């Protein structure tokens, strides 16, 4: 139930995410050094085109990746196929992308 296109999208999104997630982990380890405070973090992330671009790309890639991954699990365990499976995949992907865009806008703009 994963065709060539979805397989490639899954691998491509993984390749995009891998370095960005490592950057994210290092940033988090750095950011929590002296406790975590919303104002302090936002003062550093807001108005930065680079953070917005990096986290925008990460949120988009992770949404695609999670939607395809969940599609496999749902197909294997719940035996959902064809159109309902496609609708579910798109619904999960768009839902995550919407929430992700919201989060990126809130933190960087």
């Amino acid at each position, binding site marked *: 139930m994963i065709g060539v296109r979805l397989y490639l999208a899954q691998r491509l999104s993984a390749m995009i995410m891998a370095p960005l997630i490592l950057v994210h982990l290092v940033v988090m380890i750095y950011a929590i050094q002296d406790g975590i405070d919303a104002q302090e973090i936002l003062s550093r992330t807001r108005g930065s085109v680079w953070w917005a671009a990096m986290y925008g790309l990460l949120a988009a890639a992770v949404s695609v990746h999670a939607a395809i991954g*969940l599609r496999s699990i749902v197909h294997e365990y719940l035996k959902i196929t064809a159109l309902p499976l496609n609708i579910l995949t798109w619904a999960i992907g768009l839902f995550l992308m919407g929430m992700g865009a919201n989060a990126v806008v809130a*933190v960087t703009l």
Partner: protein
Amino acid sequence: MMIRPHRHQPLWFAFVLHRLSGLGLALFLPAHFYVLSLALTDIDALNGLLKWTENPLLKFVEGGLVFLLAVHIFGGLRLLALEFLPWSPRQKTYAAAATATAFFVACGFLMNAV
């Protein structure tokens, strides 16, 4: 209960680990995005939640989350290496190194957080 033979294979274990960590991370994602979006809509609620994460139990859970992420990312890199690089016996070493790095990253996070 009889365990099917393939379930004794290390590769089966790698598959299960990758799938479960992926499922856990996917379920965490909406909550993560929601909390971050509070920066725009309700900054006091965001600060309240950030304060809540100072709780030692939450630190422990966060450490677990980072572990899931580290396991999933390095397991995924192993998969990409298997599929896209010419296969070699050295990959067993890479896999072991990947697990060690995942553990190291998670421990580093936990030590910083606690």
